[in-house]
């Protein structure tokens, strides 16, 4: 049973990593938002699986919160922002796709190397997923740095948050509830404020 | 008489002697120069007559002159007399050692030049300014030479006070012949020429604006003031000649205050002054006046001579 559980969490984590690569590969904002939405859903699923296996009851509530906040509210806000900008033109990234993918590959290897001592310490079955979570953190950091458009940068930042949540989930079955709630509040507020500031950028740059 | 009185008497006598024979020395130098230039020349006592004449004349004071103009001549006379009182004329037993040494003497001479320059500046004429500026520059540049000459003497004789120097040199003539003293003597002579404004540095007998340094400062003076300044200049020349004579060639000076030795000393100093005067006159007829901005090179030469003297006396000690 434990082997199956760890394999499920590994596949979910790698799915989230793949979705991050989608952002690096695709050029349209809409694609970014869907990638983020699916990633949040995958995170919620992992949360539920860990909750059921690890027996931590409040994790169910947390994964439900992830589903609601990151799966639905934030993507809707993002698409609202994207619609307002109407220019569906192709977004030229700073680095071309090939180098971006190569770099993210290197980052994944680096993450794996860095998290090796962490695995020794861990005794939880989800040990295997940790390097992937760290890789997701590094890749999303790379997204934020290498993307020129505001939407991509926000998506990168949110994926970074997902990466950390995944790390916490796999590492120690989630951080204490009060901190988890705080993180949700921060993410929600952060996105709303980013939205407000982005609108102001458009107002001031337009006139 | 108690020793204090004798000391005071000896100092007073020596100073008086210097002051009295000063104009004669100047007259003597002029006479020799005239004879060398094939002229009859005035007698030795001619300067006394000139001084008496100017002393009786009325005075013309410049409008812009202030009290400095009136005080300057007396300050110059005072300073030069004080300097003369320190000089060893006849005997090596020098009571004035208690009062001052060679540096003090040099400083007193500088004090005289200081007030002379101020007197020159006061009337506010171009000549006064030019004279005092050039005089001060030359005086400033001779200071190092005098200091190093004194150092050379001090290195060999162990002290800077005049009596001690003449005494030790008299006792061990080997010093006088040594390289240190010779070089210092040459340097001192050049410094003497610059200080008293003799020929290569400044022409004492000219009134040509561009060349005169000493004369330019006293252009505005007349009557008794002029007499005093001329007399002080003469005393200054005699003082320096006596120093040149006694510090470097002290033979014939009395070693004790016995009247016989004193008279011998007296004759010795007169003879030495005569020789030096002859030397000076000879030099002045042979050499032409240096351009003012070449004078510092001459002074640099004298400074190097003095420095070599100091260094050599250092190593041969």
């Amino acid at each position, binding site marked *: 049973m434990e082997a199956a559980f760890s394999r499920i969490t590994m596949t979910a984590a790698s799915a989230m990593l793949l979705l991050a690569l989608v952002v690096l590969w695709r050029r349209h904002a809409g694609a970014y938002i869907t990638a983020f939405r699916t990633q949040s859903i995958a995170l919620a699923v992992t949360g539920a699986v860990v909750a059921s296996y690890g027996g931590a009851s409040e994790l169910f509530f947390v994964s439900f919160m992830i589903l609601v906040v990151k799966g639905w509210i934030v993507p809707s806000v993002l698409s609202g922002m994207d619609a307002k900008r109407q220019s569906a033109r192709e977004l030229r990234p700073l680095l071309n796709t090939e180098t971006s993918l190569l770099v993210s590959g290197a980052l994944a290897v680096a993450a794996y190397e860095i998290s090796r001592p962490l695995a020794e310490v861990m005794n939880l079955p989800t040990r295997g997923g940790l390097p992937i979570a760290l890789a997701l953190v590094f890749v999303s950091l790379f997204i934020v740095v290498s993307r020129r458009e505001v939407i991509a940068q926000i998506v990168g930042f949110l994926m970074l948050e997902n990466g950390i949540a995944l790390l916490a989930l796999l590492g120690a079955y989630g951080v204490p509830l009060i901190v988890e709630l705080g993180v949700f509040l921060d993410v929600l507020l952060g996105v709303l404020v980013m939205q407000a500031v982005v609108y102001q950028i458009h107002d001031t740059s337009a006139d | 008489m108690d020793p204090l009185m004798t000391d005071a008497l000896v100092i007073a006598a020596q100073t008086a002697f210097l002051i009295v024979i000063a104009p004669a020395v100047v007259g003597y130098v002029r006479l020799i120069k005239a004879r060398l230039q094939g002229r009859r020349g005035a007698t030795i006592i001619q300067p006394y007559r000139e001084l008496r004449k100017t002393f009786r004349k009325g005075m013309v004071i410049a409008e*812009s002159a202030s009290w400095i103009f009136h005080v300057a001549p007396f300050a110059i006379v005072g300073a030069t007399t004080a300097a003369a009182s320190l000089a060893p004329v006849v005997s090596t037993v020098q009571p004035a050692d208690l009062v001052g040494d060679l540096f003090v003497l040099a400083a007193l001479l500088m004090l005289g030049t200081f007030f002379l320059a101020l007197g020159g500046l006061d009337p506010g004429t171009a000549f006064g300014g030019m004279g005092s500026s050039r005089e001060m520059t030359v005086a400033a540049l001779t200071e190092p030479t005098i200091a190093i000459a004194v150092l050379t003497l001090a290195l060999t004789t*162990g002290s800077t006070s005049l009596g001690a120097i003449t005494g030790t040199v008299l006792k061990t003539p080997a010093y006088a012949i040594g390289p240190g003293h010779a070089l210092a003597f040459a340097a001192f002579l050049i410094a003497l020429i610059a200080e008293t404004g003799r020929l290569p540095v400044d022409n004492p007998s000219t009134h040509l604006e561009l060349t005169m340094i000493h004369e330019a400062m006293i252009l505005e003076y007349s009557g008794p003031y002029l007499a005093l300044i001329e007399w002080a200049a003469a005393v200054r020349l005699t003082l320096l000649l006596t120093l040149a004579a006694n510090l470097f060639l002290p033979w014939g000076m009395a070693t004790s205050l016995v009247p016989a030795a004193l008279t011998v000393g007296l004759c010795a100093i007169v003879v030495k002054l005569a020789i030096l005067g002859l030397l000076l006159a000879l030099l002045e007829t042979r050499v032409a006046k240096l351009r003012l*901005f070449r004078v510092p090179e001459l002074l640099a030469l004298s400074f190097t001579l003095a420095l070599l003297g100091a260094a050599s006396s*250092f190593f041969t000690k």
Partner: protein
Amino acid sequence: MLGAFALGAVAALVLPLGAFVRRTALVFAAIGSACALALSVSVLRAGATWTGRWDNLLQPLGGVSLRLDSLGAFFLLIIGFTGLPASLFAIGYLKQIDRHMRSRATHTLFNVFLASMCMVTCADNGGTFLFAWEVMAVASYLLVISDPEQRDAPTAGLWYAVMTHAGFLALLAGFIILAQGGSWEFPALHSASTLLAPRARGAVFVLMAAAFGSKAGLVPLHVWLPRAHPAAPSHVSALMSAAMVNLGVYGLVRLVFDLLPPGPPWWGGLLLGIGVITALTGVLYCVAETHLKRVLAYSTVENLGLVFIGLGFALLMRGYGYGPLASMGLVAALLHTLNHAAFKCLLFLAAGSVVHRTRNVSMEMFGGLIKRMPATAMLSLVGTLALAGLPPLNGFPSEWLTFQVLVAGAQRTAPALAILLPLALAGVALVAGLAALSGVRLFGITFLALPRSTGAQHAQESTWMMVLAMAIPAVACVVLGVAPASVIPQLSRIASDLGQPTGPLSAGLALSVPLVASRMWAAMIAAVAVSAGVAAALVVRISGRDRPVRVGAAWNCGRIIQSARSEYTAAAFAEPLKRVFTGFYRPMQEVTIDVHPTSRYFVRSIRLRADLAPWMDEVVYGPLVRATRGVSDRMRQLHSGSIHFYLALLPGALLLLFVISRWIR
């Protein structure tokens, strides 16, 4: 003492504006300086030490502890002795800024400045010394920039503040190395320094000598002095020149003779060399400058150079183990500090009253003031004679002693000094000669002949208070000049307190240097000179009662009208010297000839602009300033504002720190 200054500062802050503030604040300053004088004299005479300790102040630096020993008392005496006339002078001098808000600030700062200087002399631990040192720097910096009429005061203040702060940081480093983590009390430092490695001791010496040297205006750290002193109000620049620069000397003597054990001879050699260079640079610029106060500032640099020659000589002799010679050098240095304080305070106050009355600063605009300001002229003559180092006045004894000490040193010591000491002696002699020249120029051009500007034309004498303020240091100059031997016993006791075997330096009334068997009986010399002068005057007076004395026009090659244009100006006076030392001065000469349009041969006007830019500042400090500005510009381009570069720095920092963390074991 400190209480009086505190009262003065508070009075200046609290009392309503107007003449009342000025009078009370400055009277308190005068009272403060008077008790400083009294305290120092009592300590010097009785030999006891005055101590004070407040532990609740500056706790992190080990509390405030004060101890006044003989060395501190000597410098406190100078501060009190110059503070008194400066405050009295200020009462008359600062009348016109009463209405202005600035007068409140200047008076408070003046009291704070005096108080901090007194604290420096009696500080007994590193913390108090540094605190007092920096408060003194800040107070004087603010005073320098307090005068709005001075256009270049802010830049002068800037140079001054940055250089003193650099000195302060060097001092801090020196104290830290000296204390090696132990307590910063001076006695503790004294014992701790014995087990300091020679290399560390050398480092402490160089650091603190640089700091004290920059305060005392040693070349090349002197550049702030000729800028700051002319910019400050006269009573402040009098205090800065006469008292503050001496604290650099105090600091060095305290360091070398009290805190550090006897060091190697190269310490003395270094100071001696720098002293000679400083003296020469100071006097050469002092002769060539035309701004009255800058002339005096450069003369401060020169005199401090002479003091450091004495100090350097003392250290050199101690290095070679000639104890008595070392203490003679130290006494010569201290005597010259005292003499310099007296005549420099007098001259700066006189300069202040001249500038105040003629509304002008350049010497080219003065002239004929002796008739319009007789008292100031008379006192300035006394000051100038002292500056020139001529017999009746106090400049001469200390110069004479320095000569004697150098001659005595040249005789005794190892051949290695055969080159250094004669050169030093020649240097001092040249400086003495040029000082005489600068004295003639300073007095002659400013006071004599005809006024060169309307300002000089309408000048009147200063108020009696200002003249009285100038008279105090003048009397001191004469007394010290005529009877220098009276001060020698105290000075040699200071030397013995600092552990130097004292050579017998004075016998009865005359200064005597036994090793060289030479004496200088100043009183007798003055008496002989004065009596001869008076005798000559009497003779002229008696014999010429009926002689006609006529006032006529001075001979100016036949020109009829007597105008000031034919007079020698300050620049012209220094022209022969500039020609001799062109290598040093590097004068900038700019001749513009305005030619008549019709033909090249008819010249309408020729304009000559000759300037004397002190090249030393540019050579030493130019590159430093340009380098900092360049680095700063490049740093500004770094923050170009592109968000990608900023964001890239985040993973960059992560990577960098990760590599470092792997590297640290």
